[in-house]
């Protein structure tokens, strides 16, 4: 190959590499843009005097009513923050024990065949679209639970929380299973060698060793639950009440945006308030996911250190 040709080849090579590199930075740009644009649309609440005649930052934490379209609009975030909190806690209350037990079972006790069956089943559960879960909870489960428990209100936080639990079980399961699987075999061999039973080994040696990863899985599921929209929009009754009673109708932060953004007047105080809720959601899930990620990474590097 002549020198000229070779030089040309290397030029092409670095052009391609450069292109791929630029494309790869796209993910960073997107995250940055999301933050920027949600921020941009919520800032008028702080700085625009016209918008501030309708709503100010202080109003978000003043009072307990979210009534953006009444004659005397109120924009307190407390009812919808409480709603998100209630539904998320109920979902985790169901999903955490189920997902972690299943993860422990499939990595410690299940045979290879059974294991190869459990994983796809969980993936199928993860593959159910949230609108289908919401549909199921709204049309089928709500009436069923109401009849059994004699609820006064059909659509409430418990109904939505259970359906939301179905949605986050797969997320918690898969991360928890990865964490438990990462515990080195030597840990188990040592415990069994000292006379511990398989159950004692699993519960008192393996699970504690994987604990940071398991907590990361719970946090990960929590981030999912806080951010989930369709299930709570359809199954929680959609009333922004300030109520600690889980059997009351509830509205979460995500459902508030989904229910109201379609009818809102562009550029109004209400419009910017909805973007502000989006900003809060973005920041909260960002913080939860970062913590989860740091915990999980820490565990992995610790365990892989132990394997050497």
């Amino acid at each position, binding site marked *: 190959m002549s020198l000229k040709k070779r030089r040309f080849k290397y030029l092409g090579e670095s052009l391609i590499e450069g292109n791929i590199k630029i494309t790869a930075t796209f993910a960073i740009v997107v995250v940055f843009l999301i933050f920027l644009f949600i921020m941009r649309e919520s800032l008028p609440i702080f700085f625009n005097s016209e918008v501030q005649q309708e709503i100010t930052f202080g109003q978000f934490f003043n009072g307990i009513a979210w009534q953006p379209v009444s004659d005397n609009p109120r924009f307190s975030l407390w009812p919808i923050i409480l709603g998100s909190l209630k539904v998320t806690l109920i979902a985790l209350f169901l999903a955490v024990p189920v997902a972690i037990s299943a993860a422990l079972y499939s990595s410690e006790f299940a045979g290879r065949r059974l294991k190869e069956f459990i994983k796809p089943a969980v993936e199928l559960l993860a593959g159910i679209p949230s609108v289908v879960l919401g549909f199921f909870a709204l049309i089928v489960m709500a009436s069923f639970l109401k009849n059994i428990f004699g609820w006064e209100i059909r659509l409430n936080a418990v109904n939505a929380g259970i359906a939301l639990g179905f949605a986050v079980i797969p997320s918690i399961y898969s991360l928890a299973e990865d964490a438990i699987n990462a515990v080195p075999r030597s840990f188990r061999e040592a415990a069994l060698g000292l006379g511990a039973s398989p159950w004692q080994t699993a519960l008192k040696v393996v699970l504690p060793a994987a604990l940071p990863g398991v907590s990361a899985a719970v946090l990960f599921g929590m981030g999912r639950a806080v*951010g989930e929209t369709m299930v709570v929009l359809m199954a929680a009754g959609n009333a922004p009440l300030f109520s600690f009673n889980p059997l009351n109708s509830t509205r979460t932060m995500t459902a508030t945006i989904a229910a109201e953004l379609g009818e809102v007047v562009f550029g109004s105080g209400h419009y910017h308030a909805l973007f502000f809720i989006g900003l809060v959601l973005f920041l909260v899930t960002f913080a939860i996911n970062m913590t989860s990620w740091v915990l999980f990474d820490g565990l992995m590097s610790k365990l892989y250190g132990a394997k050497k």
Partner: protein
Amino acid sequence: MTNKINLRNIKDKLKIGLTGSAVLLILAILAIILGTVIIGGYKSISWEFLTQAPADGMTKGGIFPAIFGMVFSLMLMLIAVVPVGVATAVYLHEYARPGFILTKLIRGAVNNLAGVPSIVFGLFGLGFFIQFIGGGLDHSLGQTGLFGQPCILWASLTLALMNLPMIIVATEEALRAIPQAERAGALALGATKWQSIRHVVLPQAIPGILTGVVLVISRGAGEVAPIMFTGAAYYLPYLPKLPTDQFMTLGYHIFVMTTQSPDIDATVPIAMGATLVLLALTFSLNIIAIIIRSRTRSQLRKGR
């Protein structure tokens, strides 16, 4: 002593059984949801149901426009997300230095993108695509309401951003499974780095990339929150022709039918049928992905 050990064994077995029952519960949830939708929906499914438009305020007729719009938007989404996702994965796995700050930043961004709530993507699509890009295009072209309004294009791009992490992760996993010796062999024969990626690495990664594509289609088909404000319509009397038209889509159609219907008793059977179609689609796509993945894994095991 043996008695004690026996008792311990029995107790242990019980506790293990208890954790195993969590697995059963997961299977039961899956079976109940699937069973309810099949039993409630199979009667609605017919050729007419799949090929006709809704009629009489969605209390009669079929779901064809919703299926058509869904396919249209998913195709646009794939065109946008696959090249970017594959290129990002190729960079991360083939070019990037692991400890490098840019690599860490990209990985962090991908992780965070995967965790952003779907409704926030909807807000972003509205603020960025429709108002900023679309509105800006309209302004510079001297017209109103062509790009600066909800349409298939913006909805598909919003879905594409949301699904970017999934393609990246699937492709990277596929790249990781290819033995280093394959690359070394290509380089030793005089191939450049790009030639070895293009002709040796990527062809072997195709099953993995395909798994990602299938999963992204499945997830995109079921996502409603990001497209509610960026393009999906309650009802349209015509099929969309251009990417700048609004569209109906299956997931949103189910939501509309069950929450906005004037006559809920008449719409529930239709909504059940539509849910069955959506669920059948996402399930079969997921099963295809699972099969491709287990095939490539067993091939890998054989190859080693």
